[in-house]
């Protein structure tokens, strides 16, 4: 399984696609998490993502190892953005390529669910109805 794990300021779906596309695979499943313009009906102006980078990368590698053990996945990409993000910006991209689409869906959902539970990244929300700090 080829793995690409990246934490950086700006991420794109295209770079994930470029990594996973291969003529040997039939199915690619991609999850993109974007910044919403509201949380519980409160308008969000922007987010700030903070990260304990060496541990975050290590936890992401652990997830990749779990995927490799559980499913016959050929390629896996995990990208996470950090810093200031605005509504519509992409915060996270998970991309999986496999010869079988069913396990590609399962693996992709597993990765994003687990990432949200274990990877030390924190989101701070800034609201429109808040005093600027």
């Amino acid at each position, binding site marked *: 399984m080829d793995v690409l794990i990246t934490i950086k300021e700006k991420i794109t779906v295209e770079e994930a696609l470029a990594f996973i596309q291969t003529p040997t695979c039939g199915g690619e499943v991609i999850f993109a998490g974007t910044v919403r313009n509201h949380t519980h009906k409160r308008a969000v102006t922007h987010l700030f993502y903070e990260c304990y980078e*060496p*541990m975050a990368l*290590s936890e992401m590698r652990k997830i990749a190892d779990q995927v490799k053990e559980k499913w016959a996945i050929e390629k896996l990409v995990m990208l*996470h953005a950090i810093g200031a993000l605005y509504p519509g910006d992409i915060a*996270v991209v998970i991309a999986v390529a496999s010869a079988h689409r069913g396990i590609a869906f399962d693996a992709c959902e597993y990765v994003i669910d687990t990432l949200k539970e*274990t990877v*030390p*990244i*924190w989101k701070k929300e800034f609201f429109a109805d808040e005093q600027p700090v």
Partner: protein
Amino acid sequence: MGILLFGVVKETAGCAVLDCPAYIKDVATLKRWLYEQYPSLQQLSSLMIAVNRSYASDDQEFTDRDEIAVIPPVSGG
């Protein structure tokens, strides 16, 4: 020794690296001390300690050569 703080813990303490007393040599003692220093941390749904970039159980011991970090509930993705 200096321990790394993130997210709401960093905001609560007002600093990114916190100096903790030398008598603290395991995770459970560190957590107890943090709760004493910053009682509001008890309201968090979880508070994990990472030793050398891995989640540690309460009984794990450490020395001042280890990298210790306080991990409040994560919210990436």
